[in-house]
Every structure is written in C-alpha cells, then in structure tokens.
C-alpha cells in the first residue's frame, strides 16, 4: 500500500515540525530558560545550591587564576556583582582563557564552597580588534591553539 505509507510519512513529517515548534514555544525555551546562573544567584539559593548539576557563569577575577600544568590543576574565582565562587577543574583551560574574561563552567558546588567543574567554556565578546603592542602575537596564539587540539 504505497498510498498508505505515504500518508504515514506525511503524518510523521508533520509531527516532527509541530513538535519542534511546540518545544520552542512551550518547552525548554520559555521565559524561564536560564542557560547559566551567576555566582550571586547560586549562593542566594542557600541549601539548594549544593551538589546539583549547575552551569555557572561569571567573570574571572584578575589575579585569582592558578594553573598547574603538570598536575592538570586549574583554580580561579568567578564573580558577579553579588558574589564570588572559587572554581576547581582538572582540565587544561581553553586557549582563549584569560583573567577578566566571561567564563561558563559546568559542574557542582560542593559543601566546601568550591565549585567542582567538569568543563570550562570561554565566552567571547562581540568585539573584533587587531592586536595592539604588548598583546601576545596572534601568530603565536594560533600555533598554541593547534598544539592544544
């Protein structure tokens, strides 16, 4: 029954379209969607803040980054206006990682107050500028990016 099969196919296609659309309107992408919480928001949750899978986003406080390449041990502090959280990761920081930058980490806030992160993501700004004097040479950064991956 070719006609029957085609009808089922059409119905399936319609279901795919409508369900993607429904998800969009009523599902995860509602007004409530929060891709990451800031340190201040997470700390304000009190007891609910701990031991839950969390995406935490903030600015890396300048001067707080400690990176031990041999032990693969990365520590830094994330902040927003309302708070600061110390982050620990056992992965190399992305090549674009700089102090003062926006960073998003995935992991859990532990009872010790340290956020144990399984992945560190760097948020790039919408600015595109050529290098000024004193910045690391882009060519060198490009090489290090290739080595990284």
């Amino acid at each position, binding site marked *: 029954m070719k*006609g029957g099969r*085609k*009808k089922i*196919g*059409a119905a*399936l*296609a*319609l279901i*795919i*379209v409508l369900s*993607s*659309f429904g*998800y*969009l309107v009523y599902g*995860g*992408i509602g007004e409530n*969607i*929060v*891709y*990451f919480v800031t340190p201040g928001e997470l700390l304000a949750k009190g007891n609910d803040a701990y031991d839950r899978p969390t995406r935490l*986003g903030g600015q890396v406080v300048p001067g707080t980054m400690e990176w031990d390449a041999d032990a693969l041990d990365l520590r830094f502090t994330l902040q927003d206006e309302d708070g600061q959280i110390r982050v620990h990761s056992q992965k190399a*920081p*992305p*090549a*674009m*990682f*700089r102090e003062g930058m926006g960073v*998003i980490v995935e992991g859990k806030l532990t009872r010790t107050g340290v956020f144990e992160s399984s*992945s*560190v*993501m*760097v*948020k*790039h*700004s*919408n*600015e*595109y*500028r*050529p*290098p*000024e004097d004193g*910045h690391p040479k*882009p*060519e060198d*950064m*490009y090489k290090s*990016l290739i080595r*990284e*991956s």
Partner: protein
Amino acid sequence: MDTSYSDIAAVPQRPRWLLPFGIFATLFLIASQAAALLMSAPDRDMGHLQKILYVHVPSAWMSMIAPAIVFVASVLYLWKRQAKHDMVAAAAAQVGIVFIGLTLIQGSIWARPTWGIWWTWDPRLTTTAILFLIYAGYLALRAFAEDEDQRARWSAAVGIMGFLNVPIVYMSVRWWRTIHQVQSTPDTMDATYKLGLRLNAFAFLFILIFLIALRYYIARLERARTAVLEERTLAGDKIHV
C-alpha cells in the same frame, strides 16, 4: 531539444541570465573570500580563527533570508493559489536548509578552539538547531504528501509557521543568557574586518539567489516532464523513460 515532446512550448526555457549570473556569483565569492582573508589583520584574542567570521556570519544571514523567502512565497500561494509560488517556497527551503546546516557546522568548528567545546545547548544554538529541524520537517512533508494541492497547502502552512522561529533565533542572544555573543555592530568591529564581511555578505546573497533560481528552474522542468508523461499515459502511449 527533444522534439518528441508533444507540446514543446510547455517545456520551460532556462532563463538567459541564470548561467552568466551563476558564473558571476561564483567568481565574486572567490574574490570576496580572497580579499577578506588577505586584507584583514588577525584578531587580538583569537588570531586567524577570526577568518571563520567571513563564512559563518554570511551563512547565518542567509539562514534567515531563505526562510523569509519561504514565508513570502507561502503567503502568496495561499492568497493566489498559483503553483509557481509553491515551487519558489520549496526551492528556497531546499537551499535554505543547506545554509542553516553550514551555519551550525561552521559555528561548531569555531566554538571548539574559542569557547572550548564543539556544542552546548545554549539558546542561540538550540533555536538554530530547531530552525534546521523545521525545514527538515518541511522538506520531509513535501516528499511524502501525495496530492499536489494538498502538499502545497500544508507546506505553505508550515512555511509560514516555521518562519516565526527566525526572529527568535535572531533575538535569542539578547533575550536570554547565552554563550554565544550578541551581534557585532560596526562599532564593535575594527575597520580591517568590515569590508571583508560586507563583500562576503553580498557574495553569499548572490549565491543564494542563484541556487534558488536554479532549483526553481529544475522544479519547472520536473513539472513539465510529469505533465508530458501524464498526457502520454492518457493518450495510451507506451512510456519509455
């Protein structure tokens, strides 16, 4: 030309401008890419990775223009009920999904060295993936729907509804927290990058127009072929295809 067609006048002629325009669009794209790659300085943060801008951003723009064409053609179809509008909508969706796919792939390649990940479910990336699914569903619907008029009506409905996602994709970086940065403006972009981006925006637009026009022409040929075959069947001829 195959003179055995019973009605030669019904076979659509290729528009005269199509081939020259295609050659022009291709050469313009090559020249624009070369100019952008050679003229712009490396970015102070991401170095030469910045060059992905010249394909990712124009692709993303085309991923919004093509759905807009599907939308307008779908509205025109429901209003005037002429097959040509349905065919234009289909052509724009077929080409559009290629650009949406390219945008996702290029973005992923760019994300790995800059953000540190291939993919994450942030609102910009998620809504763009949904945009891809919508047009995949649109094309699947077209492939399966049996009756020509019914297919055109259903497709038009999906073509109109699906477009609602485009402003959501565009505004996602402003409405919600994302890892994806907000749109760059001429103020946030040094002069060294602007000309290259603008040239490639036009280059991609020309390619988009050429591909949609080409696909529309092929759709007309297919339609004419079907009409001839049906005519022959009615006339009781044996069909040799």
